[in-house]
Structures are given as structure tokens and as C-alpha cells.
């Protein structure tokens, strides 16, 4: 190496894995951070709407069935628990248990998606549209469809990832790390719901 090149040489001390994780896991985390910032922007936009309109925001308990939303939360939290169990089972080499738990997680995700579709249809039936709704400011309907719609699209992507992972696991083609990556994404979907549930449905 020339003297000039030596001067330009990076003094990086992190080695090949500064985060102590494989590149797959590091990239997954970077993706999750960027996706979280997307939801952060959406929720900040929602906060802007709430604070910038003069008309009162509708009382959520008069629009939504809060026990039904609580049921959806229960389903998603339970599916996260089964997903975590699947990840650990895969790491421990218990393929049957990992596959079983993956299937439970997929069932939970499908139930959640069904509940969300039912909630959307109910609200649309009651007159909720992007431009207007019977409960007050049009921003209420816009925030509802945008936030829950974006989250729902993530649930759909998560289900696709889980189904592919389950099929490949059944064929013994997915390493434990593959199950872990799918798990990280699914838990992220659960994490986002925690914020939507509190900030949109409760506050």
C-alpha cells in the first residue's frame, strides 16, 4: 500500500459486524427503523390534523366498538407471542414446534385482518368516506382510513412473509435466521398497532 493510500485508510474499529449481528439482521433492523419513521410521519400528520381543526374531534367510543378494537389488539398480541415462540423453537432446532407456532401466527394475522375488514365495512356502511363522515370533521375519516389502511397493508405483507416462511420451513429450506427475520417484521406490525390503538382509538 502506498503512503497516500495509508493516509486515506479508514480507522474503522467495528470489524465486519459492528452491531454483533449478521448483515441480514442488521439490514432488517435498518428497514424496520425506516418503516417506523414512515409511521412516525403518519402519526405526526394525524397529530397535526387533531390540533389544527377548530371543530371538535369525535369521541372514539361513540364511533367505534372499543371492546371489538380490544379484541383485535388481543389477537395481535397473542400472534406476537406465538411468533416469538416460533423463533425460539427454530433456534433450538424444534422444527415441528416452530412450524406449528408459525401456523398459529398466520391464523392470528388472518383473524386480525378479518376484523379490520369488518370494521372498515361497518364504518363505510355508516357513511364514513375520505371526504366526509357522519361524526364531524372529514379529517377524522381520512386519518382512520390512512392509519389503519397503512397498518393493514403491513399486516398483509407480514402474512405473505409468514406463509412463505412456513412453507419453506415445512420443506426444511428455511434456516432459524429466516424465521427470526419474519418474526422481527411481524413484531414490528404489532408494535405499530400499540401506537395506533393508543393515539387513534383511545386518546
Amino acid at each position, binding site marked *: 500500500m502506498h503512503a497516500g493510500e495509508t493516509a486515506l485508510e479508514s480507522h474503522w474499529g467495528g470489524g465486519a459486524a459492528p452491531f454483533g449481528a449478521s448483515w441480514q439482521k442488521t439490514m432488517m433492523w435498518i428497514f424496520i*427503523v425506516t418503516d417506523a419513521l414512515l409511521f412516525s410521519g403518519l402519526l405526526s400528520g394525524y397529530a397535526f390534523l387533531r390540533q389544527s381543526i377548530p371543530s371538535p374531534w369525535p369521541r372514539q367510543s361513540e364511533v367505534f366498538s372499543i371492546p371489538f378494537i380490544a379484541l383485535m389488539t388481543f389477537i395481535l398480541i397473542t400472534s406476537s407471542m406465538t411468533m416469538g415462540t416460533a423463533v425460539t423453537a427454530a433456534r433450538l432446532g424444534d422444527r415441528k414446534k416452530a412450524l406449528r407456532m408459525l401456523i398459529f401466527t398466520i391464523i392470528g394475522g388472518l383473524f386480525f385482518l378479518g376484523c379490520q375488514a369488518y370494521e372498515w365495512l361497518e364504518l363505510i356502511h355508516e357513511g364514513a368516506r375520505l371526504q366526509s363522515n357522519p361524526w364531524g370533521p372529514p379529517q377524522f375519516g381520512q386519518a382512520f382510513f390512512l392509519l389503519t389502511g397503512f397498518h393493514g397493508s403491513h399486516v398483509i405483507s407480514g402474512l405473505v412473509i409468514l406463509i412463505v416462511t412456513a412453507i419453506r420451513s415445512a420443506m426444511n429450506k428455511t434456516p432459524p435466521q429466516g424465521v427470526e427475520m419474519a418474526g422481527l417484521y411481524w413484531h414490528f406490525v404489532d408494535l405499530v398497532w400499540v401506537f395506533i390503538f*393508543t393515539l387513534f382509538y383511545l386518546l
Partner: protein
Amino acid sequence: MDDTHAPATTGSPYRVYWITWAMLLGITVAMLAAESFHMPRWFLVIFLLIFMMVKAVMIGGNFMHLRYEKKNLAVMVAAGILVTSLILFFFIRPEARYVLEHSSH
């Protein structure tokens, strides 16, 4: 490379998930119950926000295994999301006030 940082438990390796699941459900029930108590609005907001953050930390730490990862990864993820979100929120807050004041005139 081996990047497994499995939960170090003395009992069942799945115990952490059951406990986290039960605690998340308990917190969710407490949040729903808080709505039915007649408490000042500001108190309810703080109560719900604190419990929301507790739930987020539990999911990130126990389900997503962040507490078993290297500290720099956990800090990058948690601080990155939190700080950026707070900046976003507090930067648009004055703008929302401005829009509100001018739309009500």
C-alpha cells in the same frame, strides 16, 4: 456468522413470551379501564402515553429481542425512532397552532 443471542432463562425458554404476553394484556385492560374512570384529561393522556411506551419497550425488548442484542444496535434503533419522532411532532406543533388560529378567524 452466529448472531444468536437467545434469552438466557433458567426455566422454559418460552417463558419470557408468556410473561410478556400476560403483561401486555394486563396493561391493555388497564388502559381500557382508565377510559371509564372520570379523571382529568391531562392525567388520562399522560397515563395512556406512559403505558403505550411501556408496551412498546416490552415488545421491542422481549419479542424483538433487542435487550439481548449489542447495546449499540438497541440504541441506534430506539433512539433513532424516538428522537426523530419527537422532532417531527414538536416541529409541526407550532404550525398546527398557526393553522388553527387562522382558520377560526
